């Protein structure tokens, strides 16, 4: 008979065990085992991720986790990227920084996405955290290079400064000079979003030259091509590099000089795996990168306005490519070349060169994507803008690539039918969700009826995020998704005929999701109020820029609706055009 002992693990042993448990999911499980474990775990959690900054308050975070070193926050809903969220909506980081400044003097990392960051916030960060190491501002706004200067001047241990696609008021390039001459710890710098023509090249070169651990450097457009060689020579150890403008003169005397200098500098960079930038590409200069192409795993050509033949030449030099971002100039022919050269391709994003053109300006069709799906066995993630699609193509893609986890198809003209059969694309997307059993992310487009949502509700059991626009016939469509998609966390919908019924019938579902966005749909103000009453732990926010929702009959549909679960209750920083439907609102507003 085995003697089963009752083990009393000392706290320090438990803490040691917990130090090997990093994922939030596992740490959350640990915290639920019993109250003493909750206590031990909360004191040693070092990293938190808050997917919706309004789901919890900074005070609650700090009270529970007093020793955090790394914070990640996300603010505005994804549709803010398409200008659907009005300015002033919210997502301010200052209240968080202000509270963390007092509570987390040893905070090392802040990562923000779609938040409003001010120079004041940046100055507060610079002042408050003595061991600050990582600042990532992804698709953020509200700050200027003055704020960056404060960070540069004060954060002696800064490793990473990444401004990924943020909207920065670029007042001057001189902020870079605020990094003291004694500062040498930079590992990653991404300033590709800075728009001013001014850039302090000498400060940049000196900075790059004195930081031996620099691995990632993404420059902005203002950095001229003839300066790149010098910069690269200062940092041959770079792994990820983004050029500035990739154009220079073609006059023979200039060209041969710049080209050989550039090619020589690139050939020194034996560790280079990722390239980006390439604004204003002059194709004659492209071969300067050929020496590094065989090792490239990631290539971002989404600003490179070069045509298919040049693109084909380039990608055929890159057999190790895993990730490619490119404009639709690549065309079906280029995608065919890609499919035969790049067997390790995992992620492909094809962006539209001229989304507003009425007629197609390039020969990129559904065929390109079909070819890729056939030729690239490791393909998992797709973002594809095109002008036509067919069910047959989608079915083929689904059958070729059941290992897809992310599929975003953007047929540019809303409600475009299958160009061969003129039917809706329900069956095609149905095949995608049925075959691709691990699909986590899906974006729909084209002509779609409620049928496609029935397929999605039936098959897309691992789907976490769904984007829908100009689709469906009735509430049944929304009902299928809300009742069927077990793993759904984020749902964003625009311009669909979805109304009150499905939403109210599936109200409980809203507590199992992070958020729901609906704009230009048919949800009435009355339903919003009812929802707010019925679901007190879910914030129901109505966005109405034209006039207050209660100035009209309550059967009128609201313009925009953002619903999210929260343990912090309704927020108090709403602008005048956002109304929150809390429990009392039904009484207050009637």
């Amino acid at each position, binding site marked *: 008979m085995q003697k089963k002992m009752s*083990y009393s*693990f000392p706290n320090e042993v438990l803490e040691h065990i*917990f130090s090997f*448990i990093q*994922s*939030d999911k596992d740490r959350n*499980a640990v915290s*639920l085992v019993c109250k003493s474990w909750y206590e031990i775990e909360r004191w040693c959690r070092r990293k938190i*991720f808050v997917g919706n900054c309004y789901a919890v308050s900074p005070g609650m975070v700090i009270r529970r986790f007093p020793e955090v070193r790394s914070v990640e926050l996300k603010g505005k809903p994804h549709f803010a990227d398409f200008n659907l969220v009005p300015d002033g909506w919210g997502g301010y980081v200052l209240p968080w920084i202000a509270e963390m400044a007092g509570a987390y003097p040893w905070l090392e990392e802040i990562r923000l996405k779609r938040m409003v960051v001010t120079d004041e916030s940046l100055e507060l960060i610079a002042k408050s955290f003595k061991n600050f190491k990582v600042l990532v501002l992804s698709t953020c706004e509200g700050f200027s290079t003055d704020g960056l200067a404060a960070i540069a001047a004060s954060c002696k241990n800064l490793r990473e400064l990444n401004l990924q696609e943020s909207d920065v008021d670029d007042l001057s390039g001189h902020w870079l000079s605020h990094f003291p001459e004694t500062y040498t710890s930079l590992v990653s710098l991404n300033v590709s979003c800075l728009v001013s023509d001014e850039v302090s090249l000498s400060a940049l070169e000196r900075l790059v030259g004195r930081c031996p651990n620099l691995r990632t450097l993404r420059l902005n457009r203002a950095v001229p091509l003839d300066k790149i060689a010098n910069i690269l020579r200062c940092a041959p150890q770079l792994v990820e590099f983004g050029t500035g403008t990739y154009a220079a003169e073609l006059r023979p005397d200039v060209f041969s000089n710049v080209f050989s200098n550039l090619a020589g500098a690139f050939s020194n960079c034996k560790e280079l795996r990722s390239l980006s930038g390439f604004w204003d590409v002059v194709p004659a200069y492209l071969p300067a990168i050929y020496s590094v192409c065989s090792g490239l795993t990631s290539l971002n050509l989404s600003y490179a306005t070069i045509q298919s033949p040049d693109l084909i030449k380039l990608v055929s030099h890159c057999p190790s490519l895993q990730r490619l971002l490119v404009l639709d100039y690549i065309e079906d022919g280029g995608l065919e070349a890609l499919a035969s050269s790049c067997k390790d391709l995992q992620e492909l994003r094809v962006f539209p060169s001229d989304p507003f053109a009425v007629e197609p300006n390039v020969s990129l069709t559904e065929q390109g994507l079909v070819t890729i799906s056939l030729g690239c066995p490791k393909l998992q993630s797709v973002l594809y803008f095109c002008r036509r699609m067919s069910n047959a193509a989608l079915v083929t893609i689904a059958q070729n690539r059941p290992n897809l986890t992310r599929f975003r198809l953007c047929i540019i003209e809303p409600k475009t039918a299958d160009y061969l059969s003129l039917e809706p694309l329900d069956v095609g997307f149905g095949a995608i969700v049925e075959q691709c059993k691990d699909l986590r992310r899906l974006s729909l487009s084209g002509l779609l009826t409620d049928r496609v949502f029935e397929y999605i509700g039936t098959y897309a059991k691992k789907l976490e995020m769904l984007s829908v626009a100009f689709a469906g016939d009735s509430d049944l469509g929304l009902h299928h998704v809300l009742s069927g998609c077990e793993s759904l966390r984020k749902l964003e919908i625009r311009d669909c005929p979805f109304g009150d019924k499905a939403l109210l019938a599936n109200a409980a579902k809203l507590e199992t999701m992070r958020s729901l966005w609906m704009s230009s749909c048919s949800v009435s103000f009355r339903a919003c109020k009812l929802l707010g009453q019925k679901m007190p732990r879910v914030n129901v926010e109505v966005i109405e820029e034209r006039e207050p929702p209660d100035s009209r009959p309550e059967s009128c549909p609201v313009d925009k609706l953002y619903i999210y679960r929260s343990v912090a209750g309704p927020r108090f920083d709403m602008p005048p055009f956002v109304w929150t439907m809390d429990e009392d609102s039904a009484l207050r507003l009637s």
Partner: protein
Amino acid sequence: MSAATAKTKKIVLRADDNHEFEVDEAIAMEFGTVRTFFEDNPDATEEPIPLLNVSSKCLSTIIEYCKSHLAFRARDSSSSVEDEAKAYDVELVKALDNESLKEMILAANYLNMKDLLDMLNQAVADRIKNKSVEYVRRFFGIENDYSPEEEAEVRAQNEWAFEGVDPDDD
């Protein structure tokens, strides 16, 4: 003491069931508590050292662990020897059922053996990763002392506020 006896000096370790294990001094010195004891009592080499909280089963496994790692270290510090040592650890852990693993952790903690404890704690962490709360409770033999309301509140906070990193989904 002659050079001959110094070389093969043995120390006797006694487990909690009074079973005695004679080991080379080098092995015994791998045990943090034993090493400390000798630093404080340099003359007490004849008596068996009682290890009150360690079973014979654990003690014999730990002695084997020390012997093997001492041998690995004596060879060299090349990466291939490191790999062998790691492989040894993996096998050792694999052979331990959950109860034995827990017992070993408590023993390694009591004996103040850092490397072994690191290794065992990582192993137990791996065994409870990706498991339900109920599983973890059963694994450690812990009673849930949350009331249903308290538990629901923590769950809500965990899942709604601290749900876990997004895969990059834009």
